[in-house]
């Protein structure tokens, strides 16, 4: 079969119709991964036993493929009577996988805060929760903006994995077109171009935000 450019362009609107799915799945997964990663890191710091348990959990998540984690959630949960919509499983999978990486980012961010900050907060009589929320977190966010932004771009680039568990994001939509028409090359190429443009644009925006954040920090 020869490559048909006209058909490739024809598939563009169909694929773009799934752009919003890709975007909101990305945003939900970024939020999930950040919250879960922060909880993992805070738990890791809460005691000796927990530090070993959490360290192992983080290493396990980081040492297994995202695809396999998605299969695990998708095929194993229903076996225990938990049937969730595919996109919920997908967001869970992306959140869990990237929480392992973000926990390390949070670790570096917290380690970068001088000890005097903890001590000053304690001497002012703040409770542990208040110390974390109002003293540590704001300073940490500035330290970790750059690596966290990079992981958010990675999450965007990982959303096409969800096509394998039938989430109708852009790659899923392209595969649908392909299996309907028996033409695979054109929709794949189109979805490739769309993802490339999207990823480069978002990466650029993230870099601009970093620069602004660093400027405001230097004030």
């Amino acid at each position, binding site marked *: 079969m020869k490559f048909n450019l006209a058909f490739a362009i024809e598939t563009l609107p169909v694929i773009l119709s799934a752009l919003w799915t890709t975007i909101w799945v990305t945003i939900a997964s970024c939020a999930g991964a950040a919250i879960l990663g922060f909880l993992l890191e805070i738990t890791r710091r809460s005691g000796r036993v927990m530090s070993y348990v959490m360290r192992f959990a983080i290493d396990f998540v980081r040492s297994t493929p995202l695809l396999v984690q998605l299969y695990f959630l998708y095929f*194993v949960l229903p076996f225990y009577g938990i049937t969730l919509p595919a996109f919920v499983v997908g967001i869970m999978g992306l959140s869990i996988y990237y929480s392992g990486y973000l926990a390390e980012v949070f670790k570096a961010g917290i380690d970068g805060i001088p000890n005097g900050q903890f001590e000053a907060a304690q001497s002012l009589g703040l409770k542990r929760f208040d110390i974390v929320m109002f003293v540590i977190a704001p300073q940490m966010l500035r330290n970790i903006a750059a690596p966290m932004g990079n992981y958010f771009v990675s999450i965007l680039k990982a959303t096409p994995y969800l096509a394998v568990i039938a989430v109708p994001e852009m790659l899923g939509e392209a595969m649908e077109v392909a299996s309907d028409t028996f033409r695979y090359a054109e929709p794949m190429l189109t979805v490739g171009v769309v993802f490339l443009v999207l990823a480069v644009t978002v990466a650029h925006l993230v870099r601009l935000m970093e620069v602004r954040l660093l400027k405001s920090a230097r004030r």
Partner: protein
Amino acid sequence: MSFVDILIGIFDGFGVTASVTLWGMAYAVPFALIFGILQHFTTGPARVAVTSIIEFWRSSPVIVLLFVFYYSLPTVGITLSGITVAAMALGLNIGGYGSQAVRAALQSLDPGQVEAGKALGLRRLQILVLIELPQAFKAMTPTFINQFIQLIKGTALVSLITLSDMTFRAKEISQLQYDPVRTYTALLVAYFIVCYPATIFGRWVEKRVAVKGRSQGEI
């Protein structure tokens, strides 16, 4: 089938996982070195060209890259084996990330090193090979090991283009036995067994490189 039997069945696919990983490295390492060095040396339009090639491989989602090349190459008359296409797509994606480690490592060297080489009358290429690369190598090793782990995990994708790697074997076993809980748990464990030693090794190297770097700075 017991858990151990399933695990042994999954490791039947280890050969494919390993050969895609190794062939992938055969693409990734030369690409990372050549393009990292080129990006370090070029300026103006040449640099834009080099950066665009790197960005293409780095910014496209790896699953999309794999599908684009697997389905598009035959339409332009190029037929390659599944392993070759997978090694190329996965390898060059990882190579794109690796090139940034090479460039960053070269840029982080003290300019005095190059000047000293020039003062000794060495040619630019000699300075690169004899002075810059050996020093940069240390800084980029931890990133290379991390990318190697990413590549192993990425090979799970080849199950989607019908290569019988560990993930593919697990899917077969799951269909035959209808025991997704044990099968996918075993698959997670299998990847953990393969990747975790590399994670530990990477951490050890990182620590060594960091400590050595500091002591050199102190002198």
